């Protein structure tokens, strides 16, 4: 096919397209051939495949193939159709129909981001806004730019993360489960601190004593479990020995007692593991929280 034939067919295929669009498209491809030069003509004709395909591409972009208007490019991830409709810059909704129906196009509802573009008066001021919220809600980012058409300056600024980190006017004392609001009078806070300081010998002793006691209990439990194991094995061993060599009743009795001791030893061992794995860390955390709450109380005063 020659270039002239191609252009003629394209013109015919673009019937029904608005006159201006048709003229634009035809002059574009006319120029395209001319700029490419005759030596590239054959290659371009081959790559363009057919006038039908080119015409379909043009029509698809103009929303003339019916389905094109629904095709959204989900890589952009906008979810709000209002923006898509209003936004003069967000053009993705109808591009090259040939690329529609990609597998990823089903994700559009999940992507949690939206683009917005607004312009006040043509040629005066424009502002772009973009916001994205992760579906988990743990991060948020904002970009904004505003450009004056004369200065042409635009800036991106402001990245806010984790809005939950700001507590407003109160701080939470996590240790005792109470919250100290700034509304609480200064006298009350002062009183709490004074009481805490005055009674410090008592509660510091209690805390350290309690910790020591726990440690002692844990060590004792380990020792008890260990000795029970040793005794159980020894008794069972002697009992089996008696069964083999001496009297049967003594053998049975010793073996039974040994196995019972082993069972108790297993229980003690489980208790030890529980103590070390759960209870002790829990107590330590509790102490830490108490300490933090007292400490932050003091800081508050300063």
């Amino acid at each position, binding site marked *: 096919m020659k270039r002239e034939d191609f252009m003629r067919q394209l013109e015919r295929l673009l019937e029904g397209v608005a006159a201006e669009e048709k003229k634009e498209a035809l002059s574009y491809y006319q*120029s395209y051939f001319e700029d490419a030069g005759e030596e590239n003509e054959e290659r371009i004709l081959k790559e363009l495949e057919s006038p039908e395909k080119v015409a379909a591409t043009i029509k698809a972009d103009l929303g003339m193939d019916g389905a094109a208007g629904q095709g959204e490019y989900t890589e952009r991830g906008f979810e709000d159709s209002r923006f898509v409709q209003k936004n003069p810059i967000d053009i993705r909704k109808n591009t090259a129909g040939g690329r529609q129906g990609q597998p990823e196009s089903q994700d559009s509802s999940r992507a949690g981001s939206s683009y917005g573009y607004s312009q006040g008066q043509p040629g005066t001021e424009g502002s772009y806004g*973009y916001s994205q919220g992760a579906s988990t809600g743990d991060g948020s980012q904002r*970009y904004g730019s505003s450009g004056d058409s004369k200065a042409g300056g635009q800036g991106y600024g402001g990245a806010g993360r984790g809005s939950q980190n700001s507590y407003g006017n109160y701080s939470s004392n996590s240790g005792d489960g109470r919250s100290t609001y700034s509304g609480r009078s200064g006298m009350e806070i002062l009183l709490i601190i004074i009481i805490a300081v005055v009674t410090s010998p008592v509660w510091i002793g209690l805390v350290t004593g309690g910790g020591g006691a726990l440690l002692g209990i844990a060590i004792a439990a380990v020792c008890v479990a260990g000795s029970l194991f040793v005794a159980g094995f020894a008794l069972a061993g002697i009992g089996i020995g008696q069964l083999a060599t001496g009297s049967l009743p003594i053998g049975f009795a010793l073996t039974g007692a040994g196995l019972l001791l082993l069972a108790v030893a297993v229980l003690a061992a489980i208790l030890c593991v529980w103590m070390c794995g759960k209870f002790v860390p829990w107590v330590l955390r509790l102490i830490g929280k108490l300490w933090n709450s007292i400490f932050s109380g003091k800081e508050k005063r300063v």
Partner: protein
Amino acid sequence: MVFNTGAALLDAIVLAVVCKEEEGTYGYKITQDVRQAIEVSESTLYPVLRRLQKDDCLEVYDVECGGRNRRYYKITEKGMAQLNLYRTEWVNYSSKITMLFSGGDIV
């Protein structure tokens, strides 16, 4: 290429290519420049350019060249703003993907 080039990325690439030429550039050259980065067919870019033009991201003007008019495309203020938006987004997006591919955690 294995990965699809979405419409937004295509817009961004075209804007970046046109932006490089202060005096503007024309359809055939834009296509060749874009092809240095991604595979596009000869017919891909006309709708993109037309759309960007309608959205005032590109402006067109005709220059007489060898007894005929050649249509030039030039980026507008609005186009620059949009391109900057794309650039920021791209850095954000690509760095996360790169981090993920290299086995790191996204902070």
